[in-house]
C-alpha cells in the first residue's frame, strides 16, 4: 500500500482537567486532501482535541501532529495551517482590516494579501469598520479570512456554522466546497451532523473524549434506513437470533435494542421462533441525524 504522510495525526492523545478526562486515548489520522467532519455532542472533547493539535494546549499524554510535526515546531505555521477556534476572537474596537493586518505582519505577509482574503470572504466593504458593528456571520467570515491569510494547505475550523443563520450555513458550505476542492485538507468540527454532511467526505465521531467511529460519509449514510426498536427481557438471546439471520443490531440499554435494515414483522417472527418475549416493538425510520445521535448517545440513557 502506498504510504501518504497524514496531514493530521492524533496518537493516543489524552487530556485531563482535574478529575475529568476530556480526551481519552484518541487516535486517528487524516489523509491529505480529505474533508473530515469532527463530530460529537457538546462537551465530547472536540475543541480540546483541536487545541492540542494546534499547540494551544499541551496533551496530558500522547502526541498531536499536523503536517508531520507538532504544530509549534512548524517553520511557518501560518503559511501551512489556517484555523478558526472561536467566532468571536476579535478586539471589538479594531477594524476588520487591522485585525488581519496585525496577523499578516506577524507572519511577514504582504499587505496586499489582506485585501485579497477580504475579497475572498466578501468583506471588502466592511473592512474599515470596527468589528463591534459586525454581525455574527461577518465575524465568522473575518475569522475565516484570518485563517486563509497564509493560503494554508490545512484548514481547521471549530464549529464554524455555530449560530449562523441558514443563509450563512449555505454560504460557508459553498465556500468550503469551491475553495477547498481537493487541494486542501479540511477538518471541521460540529455537534450537528447535518451542518457538515453536505461538505465532508468522512466523519470522525467522538463522545466523552473517545473515538466512537471513523468512517466515510457513504458508510454512515448506508446505516440510514428502517430500523426496529425492541424492548425485551432477553436482549442477548434476541441479538443472537437476529444476527444469525444477518440482521445488524445495536443495543440501547439493558432491555432495548435496535435492529437495522429490517421490518417489525420479520423481527416479531424471529423472536417468536426463538421464544424471546417481546415487550415492545416499534418500527422506526431513521435519518442521518438519528444515526449520529444513536452513535453518540450514552449507553446508560
Amino acid at each position, binding site marked *: 500500500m502506498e504510504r501518504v504522510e497524514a496531514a493530521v495525526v492524533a496518537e493516543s492523545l489524552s487530556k485531563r482537567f482535574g478529575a475529568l478526562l476530556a480526551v481519552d486515548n484518541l487516535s486517528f489520522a487524516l489523509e491529505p486532501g480529505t474533508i473530515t467532519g469532527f463530530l460529537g455532542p457538546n462537551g465530547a472533547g472536540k475543541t480540546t482535541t483541536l*487545541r492540542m493539535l494546534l499547540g494551544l494546549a499541551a496533551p496530558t499524554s500522547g502526541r498531536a501532529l499536523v503536517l508531520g510535526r507538532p504544530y509549534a515546531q512548524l517553520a511557518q505555521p501560518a503559511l501551512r495551517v489556517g484555523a478558526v477556534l*472561536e467566532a468571536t*476572537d476579535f478586539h*471589538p474596537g479594531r477594524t476588520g482590516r487591522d485585525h488581519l493586518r*496585525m496577523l499578516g505582519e*506577524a*507572519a511577514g505577509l504582504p499587505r496586499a494579501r489582506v485585501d485579497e482574503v477580504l475579497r475572498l470572504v466578501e468583506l471588502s466593504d466592511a473592512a474599515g469598520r470596527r468589528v463591534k458593528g459586525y454581525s455574527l456571520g461577518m465575524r465568522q467570515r473575518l475569522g475565516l479570512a484570518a485563517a486563509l491569510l497564509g493560503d494554508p494547505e490545512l484548514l481547521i475550523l471549530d464549529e464554524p456554522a455555530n449560530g449562523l443563520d441558514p443563509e450563512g450555513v449555505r454560504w460557508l458550505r459553498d465556500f468550503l466546497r469551491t475553495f477547498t476542492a481537493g487541494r486542501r485538507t479540511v477538518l471541521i468540527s460540529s455537534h450537528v451532523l447535518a451542518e457538515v454532511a453536505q461538505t465532508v467526505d468522512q466523519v470522525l465521531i467522538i463522545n466523552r473524549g473517545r473515538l466512537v467511529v471513523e468512517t466515510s460519509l457513504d458508510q454512515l449514510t448506508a446505516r440510514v434506513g428502517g430500523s426496529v426498536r425492541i424492548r425485551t427481557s432477553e436482549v442477548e438471546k434476541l441479538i443472537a437470533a437476529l444476527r444469525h439471520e444477518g440482521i445488524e443490531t445495536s443495543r440501547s440499554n439493558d432491555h432495548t435494542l435496535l435492529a437495522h435494515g429490517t421490518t417489525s414483522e420479520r423481527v416479531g417472527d424471529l423472536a417468536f421462533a426463538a421464544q424471546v418475549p417481546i415487550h415492545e416493538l416499534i418500527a422506526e425510520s431513521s435519518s442521518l441525524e438519528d444515526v449520529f445521535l444513536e452513535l453518540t448517545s450514552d449507553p446508560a440513557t
Partner: protein
Amino acid sequence: MSAQFRAELLKIRSTRTTLGLIAGMIALTLLFSLLSGLLTKAPDLASAENQRGMLSVGSLAGVFAALAGIMLITGEYRYGTIRPTFLFTPKRSRVLEAKIAAGLLAGLIFGVLAETLAFLIGYAALAGRGIHLALNGSQIALLLLGTFAATALWGAIGVGLGAIIRNQVGAIVALLAWGFVAENLLFAFVPSAGRFAPVHAGDGFIGLTTRHLLDATAGGLTLTAWAAAISLAGITLAARRDVN
C-alpha cells in the same frame, strides 16, 4: 525590527485604548503641574526638594505605561485574539518578547510626553513667579532622563504583570493596589525593604531625596531588576500555560 514587534505596535495603534490612556495621562499631568506650579507658596517652591517634586509630576506616566502594558497582553486574553496570535506565532516567547519591547517603547513615549510637559509647566511657573531654580543641569538631566527610562520600564512591568495574571481587571487592580497602597504601607513601616520596591526604587532613580530612598544608581538598577524579573516570569508562564 522584527515582524512580531511590528505586529505588536500595530495592535497598540489600532484601538483607541492607548489614545484614551494618553489623554488621561496628559490631563492628570496638566492638573497636577498647574496646581503645584500655581498654588504652592513661593517660599515652599524655593527648596530643591519641592522643585524636584513639581518638575517630576510627569513620573505619574509610569502608572499609565503599566496600564498600557497590561492592556497589550490582557486585551488579547479578554477578547480571544490570543488564539490567532499564538496560532500565527506558536513560539510564544517570541510574542511576549515583542510585547515587552513594545511596552518599553510605549512607556518611553508616555514618559517623554508627560515629563516634558510637566517640566515645561513647572519651569514656566518658576520663571513666571521669579523663583530661582535650585537644581543644577545634571540634576535636571537625571530627573528627565530617569523619568523617561523609569516609565519605559513600567511599560514592560505592565506586560509582564498582565502575562502573569491574564485577567484584565485583576491585573489592573493588582497594579493599583500594589502601587498606591501596599507599597506605600511597606515604605512607611519598613523603609529598609520598601525602598527596594519598584515605585520607590523609581523615586530614587529620578533623584528624589525623600529619607530612606535609594540613590539614583541603586534605584535604577533595582527598578530594572524588577522589570526583568516580572517580564521573565510573564514570558515563562505564558509559554507554559494552556490557552483556552
